[in-house]
């Protein structure tokens, strides 16, 4: 039979963001797949070289739309490593709280997002509504719902508002009751279960070949390869949490791991509420200079943290001036979004293609930058 060329995206309900895959299909089986990124390329790496260190802070959250805080964190952490600045204790805890809230928000959205390609939209609506409650808290803490610009080099922008920890605690209570309903409705649903179980496999050798990190890696290797455990940053070495792993990676396993990680984030947040210092500064200066114009000592550093999709890093080069010399972004979904699609979307059914993207964790803005 003759192969037909099909475009999945950039305008497609099953597609995450402005991304496209050209699929050559025979019947309903994909025979060849070519990722086509670039619809969202905004030249961030060049823009960053032409802006002040502080000015970049307004730019970088845009690199990943649904989880912007990781950008602020890697950027701030990299600058602090270059300048050898130790930030106040309380700022570490606030950062951890922000990062875990962001992880909660994106994991809930991802868990609900599974309803998109499988056709169970109720799950998606629930998830968007739950995520909004977290965004409400973000708005109260940072003043913005999506792009917070709250984690800054040297700490965090300002103190937490009064009573926010109590509100967070109440929200966590609510989430703990609500999230199991997602499992009842979604993951145990016979149709979704059938679509996910033993489908879209990810063998361990593919993980190493392509370089997949995050949930994909942990679901296939059965090892706790999580940068929060392996190279603890902020104060992750002072809280207790488990890293869910598995040694058989089908779509259902990966979604289940995402589900379990939500509860681990809740567990971390509860400890943060309990252990966070009540008093203390939250911000320190990186170097002398005005609040906006300051210099970072020359050097190069690779700063990486664990995002919801895996290792997320910035390679930062400074020449000691007011602007960065070079910043390279390592998007966590770069390996699976390009080489992964090219090699392993093959032999997948057309209707599973968007499920493939969903459970592998492909995020187009961080591939394009």
């Amino acid at each position, binding site marked *: 039979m003759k192969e037909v060329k099909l475009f999945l995206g950039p305008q497609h309900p099953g597609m995450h963001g402005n991304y496209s895959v050209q699929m050559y299909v025979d019947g309903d089986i994909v025979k060849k797949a070519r990722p086509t990124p*670039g619809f969202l390329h905004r030249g961030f790496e060049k823009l960053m070289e032409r802006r002040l260190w502080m000015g970049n802070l307004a730019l970088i959250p845009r690199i990943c739309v649904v989880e912007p805080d990781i950008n602020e964190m890697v950027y701030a952490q990299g600058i602090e490593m270059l300048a050898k600045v130790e930030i106040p204790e309380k700022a570490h805890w606030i950062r951890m709280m922000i990062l875990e809230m962001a992880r909660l928000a994106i994991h809930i959205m991802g868990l609900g997002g599974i309803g998109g390609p499988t056709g169970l939209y109720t799950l998606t609506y629930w998830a968007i509504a739950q995520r909004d409650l977290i965004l409400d808290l973000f708005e109260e803490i940072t003043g913005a719902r999506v792009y917070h610009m709250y984690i800054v080099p040297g700490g965090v922008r300002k103190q937490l508002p009064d009573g926010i920890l109590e509100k967070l605690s109440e929200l966590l209570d609510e989430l703990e009751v609500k999230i199991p309903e997602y499992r009842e409705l979604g993951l145990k649903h016979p149709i979704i279960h059938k679509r996910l179980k033993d489908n879209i496999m990810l063998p361990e050798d593919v993980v190493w070949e392509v370089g997949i*990190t995050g949930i994909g890696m942990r679901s296939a290797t059965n090892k706790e390869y999580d940068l929060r455990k392996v190279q603890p940053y902020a104060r992750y070495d002072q809280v207790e949490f488990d890293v869910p792993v598995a040694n058989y990676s089908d779509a259902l396993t990966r979604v289940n791991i995402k589900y379990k990680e939500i509860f681990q984030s809740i567990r971390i947040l509860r400890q943060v509420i309990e252990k966070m210092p009540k008093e203390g500064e939250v911000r320190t200066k990186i170097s002398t200079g005005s609040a906006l114009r300051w210099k970072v000592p020359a050097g190069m550093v690779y700063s990486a943290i664990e995002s919801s999709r895996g290792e997320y890093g910035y390679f930062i080069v400074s020449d000691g001036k007011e602007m960065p010399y070079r910043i390279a972004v390592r998007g966590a979904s770069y390996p699976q979004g390009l080489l992964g699609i090219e090699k392993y979307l093959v032999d997948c059914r057309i209707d599973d293609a968007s499920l493939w993207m969903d459970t592998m964790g492909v995020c187009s803005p961080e591939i394009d930058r």
Partner: protein
Amino acid sequence: MMNSMNNIMKQVDDVLNVLNKEVISNRQFAIDINKGDVHQALTYLKSIGFTQLSIITCVDLIADNKFQLIYILNNWELGLFVIVRTDIDRDNPSYVTVVNIFPGAKYYEREVHEFFGVTFEGNDSSFKPLLLEIWDDIPPLRKDFDPQVYSDRKFEKRDSDKIYRSKIGGVKL
């Protein structure tokens, strides 16, 4: 943790021809390698546990008329990063691919070719465009590429009677 990093650094120093090494933090170090030894270095590092290639990128050292290729590897067991650096000529930038050691390098090399103009022998796909569409100028992440000149050439000027400037002044964007 510092101990295991020191051990690894010593091992690497014994086996490889390291030009220069630098401790960046207690979980990260950088080594400078001759242009010809990078494949040997990456193979060796992979064999001692640096099994994941995090990123390949490039830095334009225009003052020295060089490109610096950067390979960052991750050791998940020990929680260590190593940055392997090598200098190549800026005038006729070309290098040999590492896809036979790390297959994941394919698209990183393609991106470095697109943004810096470095060609990678053995990686044919690296010549295809990836993110940029119908690009007709020098590779954009080179330091001598000026976006202002490019946009003046490419787009019409719009007349506006209001000019918005930042108050801190002096920053030419």
